[in-house]
C-alpha cells in the first residue's frame, strides 16, 4: 500500500536551532515526493519537490530510498518558519493524485 507517515504532530524548537521534519513513505516504485507548507491564515502551497533538488527558504530534503525517507531540514530555524508541514507522495495512478502525511506543526520559539 502507498502511505506517507509523519511521526511528529508537533515539533517545537528555538530560533536558530536546526530543524528536521521527518517523513517516511511506503511505495514500491520510484517515488515522486513533495513538501507542502501552510502558514497561518494562508493556503496550502508547495515548498519543494525532490526532483528539483533545490533549496527553498533554506529548506532541503533528500530522498533516501534505502530508509524510504524524505526528511525536511533547515540548519537554522526562523520564527517565520512556524507553520504546518505536509509530506506528500505522488501515487502510481498517473493522475497527479497525491497521498499526504498527517502533517507536522513546526513551532519556532523566539
Amino acid at each position, binding site marked *: 500500500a502507498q502511505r506517507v507517515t*509523519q511521526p511528529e*504532530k508537533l515539533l517545537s524548537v528555538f530560533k536558530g536551532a536546526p530543524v528536521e521534519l521527518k517523513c517516511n513513505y511506503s511505495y514500491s516504485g520510484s517515488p*515522486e515526493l*513533495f513538501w507542502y507548507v501552510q502558514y497561518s491564515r494562508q*493556503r*496550502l*502551497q*508547495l515548498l519543494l*519537490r525532490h526532483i528539483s533538488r533545490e533549496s527553498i527558504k533554506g529548506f532541503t530534503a533528500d530522498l533516501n530510498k534505502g530508509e524510504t525517507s524524505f526528511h525536511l531540514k533547515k540548519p537554522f530555524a526562523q520564527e517565520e518558519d512556524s507553520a504546518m508541514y*505536509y509530506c506528500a507522495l*505522488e501515487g502510481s495512478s*498517473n*493522475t*497527479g*493524485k*497525491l*497521498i*499526504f*502525511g*498527517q*502533517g507536522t506543526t513546526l513551532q519556532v520559539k523566539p
Partner: protein
Amino acid sequence: DVKVTQSSRYLVKRTGEKVFLECVQDMDHENMFWYRQDPGLGLRLIYFSYDVKMKEKGDIPEGYSVSREKKERFSLILESASTNQTSMYLCASSPGLAGFGEQFFGPGTRLTVL
C-alpha cells in the same frame, strides 16, 4: 498566478441538509481534487476529477458526491450532512501531466454541521 477559489470560507448547516461546496480554477487545469483536512489526520482525498464529467473516488468518498460539468468548476455535494462531516474542505487543481505534482489549493471552506 494560479487562482483557485472556493465559494465560501465558512458555512454552517444543519444535520440532513444538502450542502454544495463550489470550487473554480482559472488556469485551464485538467485535474481537480477535493480533500478534507482534519487535525492529526492530514489531508484525505474525497474525490478527484481528471477531465470534464470524469470523476474517481478517493480514500473517503462515503457521504459525498461530486460534479464537474465544466473544466474550471468542481463541486462537492454532501447529500445529507452529518455532524461527522464537520471539517475544513480544501479544493485543489493541477495540470494534466503525471509527475508534475504541484497542486494549487484554494483557501478552504470550514464547514460546521449542527
